[in-house]
């Protein structure tokens, strides 16, 4: 690579989680492990431009971080006897890796993922910790991704790491019987990160590819670590299928383009093929598809349909029904109502939406009102549609979504 600074960043982004995880296992201290890997980064920034990138950057990082951790522990020695024992343990248990190949370095990232996503931490803390320690993002990058400020993210990380340490959260993969519940959290954290990138909850632009790309990278790591876990495979498939449409979802001005109106030549076929393969692999591994497998299956039907008209809407409705049986949710119910309207007509969709309204679900969610407005517009009831578009606009947080609804509102007004 010609640009050594960029090479340092790229290598550290890939190797950060593994190095932190390995050091945490030996040192029993996530904070110290993170600091040591950060020290190694500073050393690399100073040395790689002159010495060149080492033959095995992974081994170099782990070895340098190990040495820095031992230095840090020795400096603490005056305060605590315990530090000296730890430093010796690190020396004995973690021989320098400089002469070994990459594969000889144990991959402890699964422990790190489960620890960062421990249910004793708040969901915001799980997300920030995973982005920092597993994905190796900087505090500034996390703040940008979560539309927060750096000091708030830094504080959230400090509190979360303190809780892990003080409350005695173990650094390990859960027992088999706890895996389903605990894995569900890990998957939801990765998908939360992805969705932050897919539709920013606030802000102006529709998507931030970098964040979605990081979530996909985490999904790939998880799948590599749990290769037989159908839901881990399905989550990656789902993200890839969504991501494949990233160039078609917004026009040149950053404005939303609906699925039916998207230019399908802009869909990324490589990602679609991979997403479809992974969806099938996930389904083959289990007789009882989980919620990500069902969502990936829905995305797969969309990806396979070359024209909006021939989408297999009845199949999509059936998949939504299965999803609702597994995990009832008003948002899924609303999506099912849309698919139902495509299969059975707008009045059928409107009746389904009315059942949600009667149940008091999603009353303050812009998508409920926008969906109602769309269905009313399809039925030619423009005045009612306009009223619901106006309500949806009031409730939408994302600038691109708001502008999209404003265009729809203008269209129904012009048509009436």
């Amino acid at each position, binding site marked *: 690579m010609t640009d050594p600074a960029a090479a340092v960043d790229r290598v550290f982004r890939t190797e950060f989680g593994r190095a932190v995880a390995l050091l945490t296992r030996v040192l029993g201290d996530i904070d110290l492990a993170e600091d040591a890997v950060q020290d190694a980064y500073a050393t690399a920034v100073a040395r790689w431009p002159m010495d060149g990138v080492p033959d095995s950057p992974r081994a170099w990082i782990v070895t340098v971080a190990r040495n820095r951790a031992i230095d840090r522990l020795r400096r603490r020695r005056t305060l*605590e006897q*315990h530090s000296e024992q730890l430093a010796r343990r690190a020396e004995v248990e973690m021989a320098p890796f400089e002469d070994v190949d990459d594969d000889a370095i144990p991959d402890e990232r699964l422990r790190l993922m489960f620890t960062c996503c*421990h249910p*004793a931490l708040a969901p915001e803390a799980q997300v920030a910790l995973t982005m920092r320690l597993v994905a190796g993002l900087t505090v500034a990058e996390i703040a940008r991704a979560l539309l927060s400020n750096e000091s708030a993210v830094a504080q959230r990380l400090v509190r979360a790491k303190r809780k892990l340490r*003080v*409350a*005695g*959260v*173990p650094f390990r993969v*859960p027992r088999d019987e706890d895996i389903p519940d605990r894995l569900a959290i890990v998957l939801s954290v990765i998908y939360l990160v992805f969705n932050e990138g897919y539709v920013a909850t606030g802000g102006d632009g529709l998507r931030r590819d970098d964040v979605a790309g990081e979530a996909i990278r985490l999904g790939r790591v998880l799948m590599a670590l749990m290769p037989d876990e159908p839901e881990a495979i399905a989550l990656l498939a789902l993200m890839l299928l969504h991501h494949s449409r990233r160039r078609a979802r917004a026009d040149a001005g950053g404005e939303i383009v609906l699925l039916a109106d998207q230019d399908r030549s802009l869909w990324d076929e490589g990602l679609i093929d991979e997403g479809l393969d992974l969806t099938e692999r996930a389904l083959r591994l289990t007789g009882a598809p989980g919620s990500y497998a069902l969502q990936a299956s829905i995305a797969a039907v969309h990806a396979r349909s070359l024209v909006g008209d021939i989408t297999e809407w009845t199949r999509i409705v059936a998949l939504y029904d299965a999803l609702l049986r597994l995990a009832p949710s008003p948002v899924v119910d609303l999506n099912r109502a849309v698919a139902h309207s495509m299969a059975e007509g707008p009045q059928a969709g409107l009746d389904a939406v009315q059942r949600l309204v009667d149940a008091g679900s999603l009353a303050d969610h812009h998508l409920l009102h926008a969906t109602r407005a769309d269905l009313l517009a399809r039925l030619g009831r423009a005045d009612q549609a306009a009223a619901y578009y106006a309500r949806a606009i009031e409730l939408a947080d994302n600038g691109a979504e708001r502008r999209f609804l404003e265009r729809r509102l203008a269209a129904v007004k012009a048509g009436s």
Partner: protein
Amino acid sequence: MQYMVLIYDDPKVWQEMSEGERNGVMGEYLAYSESLRHAGVYVDGSQLEGTQTATTVRLRDGARLVTDGPFAETREALGGYFLLECESLDEAIDHAGRCPSARLGSIEVRPIVQMPART
């Protein structure tokens, strides 16, 4: 590490139980605390008298202020505790989750502050 397992429940739930139900839960508590001893994690534990027997003491400007209560604003009140010696939070959570009141109220698990070892 030591963990304080604080048991919060709604006294009304207990009051509204029939004699038989109450005896059933008491039996579960006996078996539960026996299982904690058997697992080697039990350090201490007690049930507390109700909040109507509580007295609050404060020192303000050198004067001792003694008042009746507090009577919790929330319906759940601290009703008892166990002090456990566990390897990790996960182990403490496992034991807390088997407490009969996990089903009736809620259980708070708090680590005991570890004093740094003197050198």
